[in-house]
């Protein structure tokens, strides 16, 4: 390793340790043990083990790529793979050893010495940089004190608590079982196994990177597809269940787990097709771009028709459970389209969108319920109440908009956030209990009737959501190209200039708020009819946060983006329910990653993209 050039060595070290830290983190928050419960391939590999393998594999792959760019040879690349594997296992292995006496002794020694070492190191650095002696001594004392307090605290906690498990609850037996590959009783052997597996994965990753393009891509494609389908086994089975015989499915899945043969077949098929695509794909793309304009247009039309048929057929293709998810996604798409009017088009940062949602839901609940709180006991039907809910939400939107018309940017955000909280607290309050049930909510909301049939299944409700979303989509597109739409855009870009141009900003903003609220009301009403009960604890700030996030993740002011955003942020967590404990953790990580990697959203709107490219400081959504 010493013969490697320094930058290369440090790359390997840093990335290797990052990978090790990642595995340690996953273990400490309990993900590895929890994911171990989920088998990716039946009796072969669990998701937890896959995670342990994937970290050194992927890290070594990227390390190898960097080394390749520097022109390092194969031997060094493989060595780097080994080192990455070792480093990946290292942090977790240290934790595994924690409970042994020798290790505790070393740890306490390190904790006691570290303040002096750290202080000396930093002070020495300042001394070398030319600071005068008094400053250096002061710095030394300060750092020794600070680090001393921390290490003293750690040492005390460990001393008193004795067992690490009483602090870090997930460094438990299950975790040890997974990382030692079932060698809990024989720790040295377990650690050796862990290290060996990790090294093999690292070397494999490095090797993969050194392959020629076609087989490499094919393998990556095959591996990731197999892992993905294995990990989302439940979803895959649910879709297949609708379209295949029960016995055929049992050949492929054991409950929600891919059987070994099926996994192998899947891997081979996807690798081969990946291989073929790498070789022949370019030709296909060339021939597509080679065809004439009119031909391409007709191809697009065919595509659109297929898509429409697909959307109409969707409930039958995916079955009841996933239709239920689709309805939830649809409700959020509806809200996304609505909120987009305020945020995307008019640039009004509204964090209280749940007010409209709650108003719609409660209006429907109170007007149609056949329970004790229902005002009309079934005289009003779903279809009659939808317009009422829409108007009520518009009215609520109007009421809340008036006081905040003069506010801008973050003040608007916090004021609307406050409105959301107010509505939530009112819904739960004893004060309004005689009307809307307080904490007990409103129950016995009948399902919509459609020509005498009760639309109680998600497959049927899907069409209501689809229809509402299409109407909203249409309105949204029309608005975007209308005079009002242009006024909003002017306000979004610069409110002062808009006012100077003679735009009645107060009126335009009110219109944006009320229209945006209307959609929220419809979404709330559909939600109430879907669930059949309305409880106040459904209306929390998380609704507003979810809707906002899906707009931004999808791409602000982009209609297709909203759909994709809803699928990613609302649909994926529903499908990941089996990892429910970590749903919010993954959701948070996803939001951060998305914003760093693709701040313009998954499917950016054309206007925003244009602004990004032309170097104009994107004022959209800056709202300042």
């Amino acid at each position, binding site marked *: 390793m010493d013969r490697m050039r320094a930058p290369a060595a440090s790359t390997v070290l840093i990335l290797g340790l990052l990978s090790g830290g990642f595995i340690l983190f996953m273990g400490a928050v309990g993900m590895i043990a929890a994911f171990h419960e989920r088998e990716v391939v039946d009796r072969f590999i669990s998701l937890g083990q896959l995670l342990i393998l994937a970290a050194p594999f992927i890290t070594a792959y990227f390390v190898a790529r960097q080394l390749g760019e520097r022109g390092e040879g194969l031997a060094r690349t493989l060595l780097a793979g080994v080192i990455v594997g070792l480093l990946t296992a290292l942090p977790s292995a240290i934790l595994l050893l924690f409970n042994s006496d020798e290790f505790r002794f070393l740890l306490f020694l390190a904790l006691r010495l570290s303040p002096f070492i750290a202080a000396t190191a930093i002070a020495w650095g300042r001394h070398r940089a030319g600071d005068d002696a008094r400053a250096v001594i002061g710095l030394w004392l300060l750092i020794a004190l600070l680090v001393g307090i921390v290490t003293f605290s750690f040492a005390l906690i460990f001393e008193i608590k004795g067992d690490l498990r009483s602090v870090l*609850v997930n460094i438990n037996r299950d975790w040890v079982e997974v990382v030692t590959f079932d060698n809990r009783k024989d720790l040295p052997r377990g650690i050796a196994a862990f290290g060996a597996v990790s090294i093999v994965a690292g070397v494999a990753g490095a090797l993969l990177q050194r392959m020629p393009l076609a087989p490499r891509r094919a393998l990556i494609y095959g591996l990731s597809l197999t892992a993905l389908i294995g990990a989302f086994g439940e979803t895959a089975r649910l879709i297949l269940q609708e379209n295949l015989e029960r016995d055929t499915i049992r050949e492929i899945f054991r409950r929600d787990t891919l059987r070994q043969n099926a996994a192998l077949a899947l891997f081979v098929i996807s690798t081969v097709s990946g291989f073929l695509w790498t070789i022949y794909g370019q030709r296909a793309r060339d021939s597509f771009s080679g065809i004439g304009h009119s031909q391409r247009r007709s191809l697009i039309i065919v595509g659109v028709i297929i898509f429409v048929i697909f959307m109409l057929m969707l409930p039958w293709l995916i079955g*009841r*459970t996933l239709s239920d998810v689709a309805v939830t996604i649809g409700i959020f798409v509806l809200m996304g389209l609505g909120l987009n009017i305020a945020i995307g088009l008019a640039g009004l940062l509204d964090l209280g969108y749940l007010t409209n949602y709650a108003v719609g839901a409660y209006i429907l609940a109170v007007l149609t319920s056949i329970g004790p709180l229902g005002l009309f006991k079934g005289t009003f039907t779903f279809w009659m109440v939808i317009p009422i809910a829409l108007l009520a939400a518009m009215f609520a939107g109007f009421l809340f908009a008036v006081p905040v018309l003069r506010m801008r940017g973050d003040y608007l955000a916090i004021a609307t956030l406050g409105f959301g909280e107010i509505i939530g607290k009112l819904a739960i309050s*004893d004060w309004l209990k005689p009307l809307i049930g307080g904490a007990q909510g409103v129950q016995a909301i009948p399902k919509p009737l459609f020509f005498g049939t009760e639309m109680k299944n998600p497959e049927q409700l899907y069409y209501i959501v689809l229809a509402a979303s299409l109407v909203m989509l249409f309105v949204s597109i029309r608005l975007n190209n209308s005079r009002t739409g242009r006024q909003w855009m002017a306000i979004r870009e610069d409110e002062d200039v808009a006012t100077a141009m003679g735009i009645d900003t107060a009126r335009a903003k009110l219109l944006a708020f009320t229209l945006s609220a209307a959609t929220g009301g419809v979404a709330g009403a559909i939600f109430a009819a879907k669930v*059949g009960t309305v409880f106040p604890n459904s209306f929390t700030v998380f609704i507003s946060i979810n809707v906002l996030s899906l707009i931004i993740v999808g791409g602000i002011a982009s209609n297709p983006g909203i759909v994709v955003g809803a699928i990613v942020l609302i649909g994926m967590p529903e499908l990941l329910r089996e990892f429910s404990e970590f749903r919010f953790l993954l959701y948070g990580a996803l939001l951060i990653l998305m914003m760093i990697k693709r701040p313009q959203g998954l499917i950016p709107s054309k206007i925003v993209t244009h602004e990004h490219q032309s170097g104009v400081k994107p004022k959209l959504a800056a709202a300042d």
Partner: protein
Amino acid sequence: MFLRVACLIFLLTATALPAFGQPDCDDPIGCVEVGRDDPLVIGAMLVVSGASSALGLDAQGGVELAILARDGLLLGREISLVVEDSLCSAEGGQAAAQRLAADDTIIGVIGTSCSSAAQGALPIISEAGLLMIAPSNTSPSLTNQDHEGGGGHRPGYFRTSPNDLIRSAKAAEFVLTQLGVGALATVHDGDTYTEGASRVMSQKFAELGGEIVFGGAINKGDTDMTAILTEIAASSPDIVYFPLFEPESNFFAAQMATFPGLEDAVMMTAAASFVESFPANTGEAAIGIYMSGPLVSGDAYDAFLLTWQDEFGFSPPSGYHAHAYDGANLLLNAIEAVAVESEDGVLSIGRQALRDALHAVEAYPGLTGELTCYDESPYAGDCGSVTAIAIFRFTEAEVHDGNWPPPVVWNFATDSAG
């Protein structure tokens, strides 16, 4: 009426589920077929994420231990548990129920944790021909068949937790007869459970001749109780009933104990805070607090706790693990009783037969006491043991020495008048 409902359910199930039933299944709402090498699949919908997750993880542990107690086997087959997160909301319950109902291998469901989730889940579970045994629902609505009057019961609903109607009536009786105090103040936190508990308590207390001097509420997440305590002190009650969850119950108890004007008022809380950490976290202030909670004791329970500690490495995070354990056992026993094995080794479990088997449960010796399932409104599907509720009183031992559970001062079954 019943016939119509049954017919409707039958029709719906028949149309909703493709007919997998083999000819020898004569159950009115279908059968679950389990192949020779297939596992028996039990569903669970519990709150395992979010702020109330302790409740769900607690129950999940109970179910897992019930399966473990049989070495994971029933009728020679592996028992497999599918856990869906029902959150603590109606839509969460609905989504979880939808997923479990779509899986035609699932025989029965343990859950939900929260009553609100049950309201969302029950219609779907019921129509799918499944049954659910809730370990910690207490809302009276769920076992009430008067739908016009707010009842939400559907066929297939069972629970091993006590109905609030019974628990609160007994608690009110204890307060009036044993403590001999007559002016009650209640506090809830806007949760479906706590609001229901304090409302039913007020009702029963007034019915038995007590006086309600104050009924107020705080918010989840509140830490400062000075404002509500000031109001309570102004109405000078003899007893303050606060069936809150942790941590609000900790804050409330700790601050009430030293609050000027309330030094002499009796404090009483309920099962939501029946957790080992409650006295420890509340500190000195917890000494002397009464609590109406699940009475789980005995050698079997001690052994259960040991197994739990051994298996998971920490103590049960909430108070309904034993109810979940009992619920799972009721379900497994019922499966054992109604399953019919054909010559080719396929097990057939009638869905209605399974429900009937649960309704027929009588004096089953569970961890929580003797369980008997009733089938008449307002207790339709209530299996919770009456002996499993008692009034406890915290002492120094719980606060400082980690003693658990606190001593019982009044047992509903033996000390109650009615």
